[in-house]
């Protein structure tokens, strides 16, 4: 139990929760790969920070909240971890949040997006390096919304879709755009043409889409000839697996959270290089960067406290802490511990020798621009 680890003052343990099997397993694997690289980067390969050895233990949540709780408890109690990192799904993460509070350990949330993690379900031990839905939405709005622009929205009829659109709407309207139609579709549906039809009827300038997961409507959007009717599509350019399904959106402008060629900084250069070296020429993906960021944030905090694991010291250090990440500088906002970060306005372009549409930078949306509203009521 706990005392074994605490007797070993010299080691700092981090428990990483991720979906290694189940529908989100690619996300989980990226996080883990990124985390490992991030640790190497931040400790310059020594896995030592402020004189302490850093270890990490990975557990598979299987994208099931009950398993996540069990694994988290195991990490906290048996392995005696000092930090939790994770996880791939919002559900798993939400289920683990109270444990962080109960055991008084810091949890770095990456890459779960649900606003409520830093909103109503937040507690002071929670820090999030991943972006949240609202940031996405603000970035999405910033990429297309301006005065007198008519925008229709289309999203999955679930919490992710609804939340994303609500935040987008707020952001877009602030920028002077009007939302003319909101469509939500059964994420499991075969046929989205009716929703698309309804959008066409409103003749908007833009169609903004919030969609995660497999059964995406891209193909049908193209079939319905939206572009030809003067409706521009905009959505998030997500991980590479998703990009591979977005062939028909070539030329679209939207935003990206991360793509290896978008940020221009040395951390990212290092990541791309090392990742390719380690994984057979493969480029890092969306959540690889996220995993790395989570690792860096922890190591940086430890460096600042000089290896002090005292949780209150760590919290006060991390609040307002700025740190270098593959996506440039980030900062944990003091109020809700959400990392403010850059997102990227992009267009999708075809590139020689790449089997998916490549997000090409239009401009970086800096952390002030993408700053989401504070929702944890404190």
């Amino acid at each position, binding site marked *: *139990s706990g005392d074994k680890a605490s007797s070993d003052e010299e080691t700092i343990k981090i428990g990483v929760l991720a979906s*290694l*099997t189940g529908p989100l*397993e690619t996300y989980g694997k990226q996080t883990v790969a990124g985390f490992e690289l991030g640790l190497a980067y931040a400790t310059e390969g020594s896995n030592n920070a402020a004189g302490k050895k850093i270890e990490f233990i*990975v557990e*598979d949540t*299987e994208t*099931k*909240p*009950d*398993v996540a*709780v*069990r*694994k988290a*408890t*195991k990490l906290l*109690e*048996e392995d005696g971890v000092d930090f939790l990192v994770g996880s791939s799904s*919002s*559900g798993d993460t*939400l*289920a683990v*949040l*109270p444990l962080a509070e*109960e055991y008084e350990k810091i949890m770095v949330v990456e890459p779960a997006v*649900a606003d*409520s993690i830093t909103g*109503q*379900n937040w507690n002071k031990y929670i820090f999030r390096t991943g972006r949240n839905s609202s940031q996405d939405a603000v970035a999405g709005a910033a990429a297309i919304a301006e005065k007198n622009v008519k925008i229709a929205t289309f999203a999955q*009829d*679930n*919490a*992710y879709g*609804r*939340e994303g659109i609500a935040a987008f709407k707020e952001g877009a309207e602030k920028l002077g755009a009007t939302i003319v139609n909101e469509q939500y579709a059964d994420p499991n549906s075969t046929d989205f043409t009716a929703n698309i039809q309804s959008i066409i009827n409103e003749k908007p300038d833009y169609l903004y889409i919030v969609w995660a997961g497999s059964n995406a409507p891209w193909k049908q959007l193209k079939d319905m000839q939206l572009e030809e009717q003067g409706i521009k599509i905009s959505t998030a350019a997500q991980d590479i697996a998703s990009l591979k399904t977005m062939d028909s959106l070539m030329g679209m402008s939207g935003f990206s959270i991360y793509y290896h060629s978008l940020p221009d900084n040395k951390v990212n250069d290092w990541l791309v290089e090392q990742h390719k070296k380690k994984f057979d020429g493969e480029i890092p993906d969306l959540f690889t960067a996220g995993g790395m960021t989570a690792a860096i944030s922890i190591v940086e905090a430890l460096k600042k406290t000089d290896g002090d694991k005292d949780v209150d010291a760590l919290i006060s250090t991390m609040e307002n802490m700025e740190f270098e990440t593959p996506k440039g500088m980030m900062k944990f906002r003091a109020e809700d511990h959400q990392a403010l970060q850059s997102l990227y306005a992009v267009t999708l372009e075809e590139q020689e020798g790449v089997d998916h549409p490549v997000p090409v930078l239009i401009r970086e949306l800096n952390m002030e621009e993408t700053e989401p509203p504070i929702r944890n009521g404190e």
Partner: protein
Amino acid sequence: MLLFMMLFPFVNDSRSMLILLTQIFIFAIFAMSFDILLGYTGIVSFGHCMFFGIGAYSTAIIFNHLEATLFNFIIGLAIGIILSALVSYIIGLLSLRLKSHFYAMLTLAVSQLFLVLAEKWRGLTHGGDGFTFSVPDVFKDRTSFYYITLLSVAVVFLLLKLFTESSTGKVLKAISQNEYRAEALGYKSLHYKLIASVTAGVAASFSGALYAVSLRFINTNVFSIEVTLDALLMTMIGGIGTLAGAIAGAGIIEFLRHYLSELAMTYPIFERWTIILGLLYIVVLLGFPSGLAGFIKRITLNNKMKAKKKGELERTTA
């Protein structure tokens, strides 16, 4: 066995094992409730998760709005149980006269409607993301919660056992074999099926409530078809028509899951452990249609027969 389980926390101080066992107990209750339908009454329901979910959400929502006291837990539990009883009664009344597979699909449909409801009634459920809530301290403590669930399994097992041994239970068994004949003996089969489905619904709701408390979090997953499938796997593998089989099944499945996914950390081929579970399930269905419990029963029966034969042989030769 029970004694061993009682002593377990003293001999083993691994918390995650404790949680795993707690989880197994909760699912054991759920699987037993499913067994009342599948094993004792011959009703296949593909929507059993709805009662699990109703129980879980009732408790969770109460704790989300009221204080985390034991009294409120009882209230949540009661609401869940009443709702489940009501829902199972109504669904049963409408559809239990359908043939097995139609009933299965109908329950699936209704449970999916509950999923949609939970997804859409955001004000109450916070949609698919779900919400966390706090629970009374006795439930927070892993050891005391372990004992609470252990006690619950024992009590539910006992109650259901009594139920299946009662006249009503006997009639259920008879109905599952020959409904037509049972009617001619004066038993209204619909009444009995309703009793079975309400009993099962109530027990499932109870396990759902415990589940929510154990997580201190809830989301729409509790209404997902996987939850029903789990109950099905557990009951089938453990052996239908024997409540103990359902408990064993819950244990087997959860442990297998646990160790296979652990193995996956070192041997990536085990990442596809769902296949192994699926194959196991198929093998059990084909090879031991009565599950583990049935298999054991058969072996002991065979041994008894052999012993008896031997005895007879000795007598005749003597």
